[in-house]
């Protein structure tokens, strides 16, 4: 049974504007960590807020735990949410913050201490129970927010970009903590982010959204290796997939699948003539930006190689090859994935 399901979920903020969310169908599996990934304005946060009950859908249905909830208030949905700013109550101590949901839901006083201790223990908050949020670091605040969510024993966890406010270094360790949390708790979770690295690292499945629609849902491998359209192909991957257009067709291949063509190229690769314009050294890898000559003259291509490989000289023309099974084909008009075409 799907834990969270949305059917044709739509949200229109103003009648004249295009919908913020346009007919989204999602179904999470039990214990799954589903990531909603997309640029700002794609509607992912709006979907999350509708699932939480903080925003009313214009049309469509929301089901949680087999029960239709779109008319219900947040407190009746048995969910927990971690906000981008964590939304800790600033005038309450950590202990009181964690206790708040228990009080609000009428859990008997006698049970409070045990549940708080258990939630606090899971996140090593025991020493911090009497501190106020302003006395905590960013990482500690995240743990308090998680503990407060966990203590409710919800059916679903909802995360609204909780790592966005952290600096890069802290983000990596906070991400690890989230991963460990998920592995241990195994409650269904829906996680919203615009950061594809977070999405790929954390998600069991990723749903990529653009302008209110879900473009593709799949495992990280599926959406990366087999994108459903050019939007997904270029959104995932940094630098994005190379797209070459010709005769109404687009062929794509990822920068890391380009390699120097050795003597005697195999039948299953296509060779291009690549003129390097500039290179970027990034430490562990190198990016070469350039143009193709010959059949595909004028098309710009990015080549990604490990930094131990010798860099092409700027201005030099090099023969590069891409394996045929690495090509992806798209329709130039719609951007949608099509069947392979033969390449000259």
């Amino acid at each position, binding site marked *: 049974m799907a834990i969270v399901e949305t059917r044709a979920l739509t949200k229109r903020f103003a009648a004249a504007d295009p919908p913020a969310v346009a007919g989204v169908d999602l179904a999470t599996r039990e214990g799954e960590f589903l990531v909603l990934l997309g640029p700002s304005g794609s509607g992912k946060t709006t979907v999350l807020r509708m699932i939480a009950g903080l925003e009313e859908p214009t049309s469509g249905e929301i089901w949680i735990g087999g029960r239709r909830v779109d008319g219900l208030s947040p407190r009746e949905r048995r969910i927990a949410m971690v906000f981008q700013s964590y939304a800790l109550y600033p005038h309450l101590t950590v202990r009181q913050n964690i206790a*708040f949901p228990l009080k609000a839901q009428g859990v008997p006083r006698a049970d409070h201490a045990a549940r708080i201790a258990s939630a606090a223990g899971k996140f090593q908050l025991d020493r911090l129970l009497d501190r106020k949020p302003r006395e905590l670091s960013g990482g500690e605040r995240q743990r308090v927010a998680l503990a407060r969510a966990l203590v409710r024993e919800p059916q679903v966890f909802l995360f609204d970009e909780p790592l966005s406010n952290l600096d890069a270094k802290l983000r990596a360790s906070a991400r690890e903590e989230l991963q460990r949390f998920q592995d241990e708790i195994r409650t269904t979770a829906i996680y919203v982010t615009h950061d594809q690295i977070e999405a790929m690292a954390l998600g069991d499945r990723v749903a990529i959204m653009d302008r209110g629609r879900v473009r593709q849902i799949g495992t990280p491998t599926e959406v990366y290796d087999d994108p459903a359209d050019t939007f997904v192909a270029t959104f995932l991957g940094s630098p994005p997939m190379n797209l070459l257009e010709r005769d109404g067709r687009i062929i794509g291949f990822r920068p890391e699948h380009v390699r120097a063509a050795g003597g005697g190229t195999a039948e299953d690769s296509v060779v291009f003539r690549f003129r390097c314009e500039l290179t970027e050294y990034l430490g562990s890898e190198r990016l070469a930006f350039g143009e193709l000559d010959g059949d595909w003259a004028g098309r710009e291509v990015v080549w990604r190689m490990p930094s131990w490989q010798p860099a092409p000289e700027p201005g030099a023309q090099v023969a590069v090859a891409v394996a045929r099974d690495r090509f992806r084909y798209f329709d130039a008009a719609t951007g949608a994935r099509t069947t392979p075409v033969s390449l000259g």
Partner: protein
Amino acid sequence: MIAPAAAYVALLVGLPVLMSLFLSVSDARVGSETISFAGLTNFRSALATPAFRVALRNSFLFTAASQALVVAGATLLALALREPFRGRGLLRLLVLLPWVAPISLGAIGWKWLLDSLYSVVTWVLVALSLVSASNPPMWLGEPRLAMLSVLLVHAWRTLPFATMILLAGLSAIPRDIPEAAAVDGSGFWRTHFTITLPMIRPILLVALLFGVVFTFTDMTAVYILTRGGPADATQVLPSLAFFTGILGGDLAQGAAISLFLFPLLLAAAVALLRLARRAEDAS
């Protein structure tokens, strides 16, 4: 650079205070040609006067009662006006009117609204059969009713200011805090009493302090509504000082009475400065 400001404060504030200090320990009367030192006589004789004791009690009573009403009323009003709805702009303007209108105008309006013969309030109560037409309440003539009327007018006047301050405070609360409370399972009242109100407590205190100072020092409402009557029942310190010093001609006594306001106002000023300091440190 600060010379103009310092001169302003010295002239408009310092000078009158020094004057009243000087007068209070003298035996000055309107029209008297000589002044001599009188020590603490004026203060002692003020304390001995029954009218003074009533005025002192009333000052505290009206202030406390009216501000208690204001805090409760302003909180409800601010919560109601926080969410957008049709006509909210107009309603906010109407709420603000008692404050922006000159107090004398407001008081005159109320004087007619509470008149013993022509009161609209009485008319409504008679229509609702809560009061008999042959024995209408003397809103400003019966001591207890007069006290109630005065403190209600005080509350009516300071409510808008407190409401606006609270509205500002409420809008400063980040949106996701009440949302987090909603997701945590908290209903409307619990959220407001345990989360929202504690968070705006500093601002609430500021509004309260302002209201206390404005009400405690106001003589206009009493002067216009009841002249301090009936029989000094609604007298307050500022109005008593006015009647004694200006209308009665006993400048020294009047100054002494008005100086009794000073301790409370000093305490209020210190409290406000402390709050401001704490807000500064926190940011």
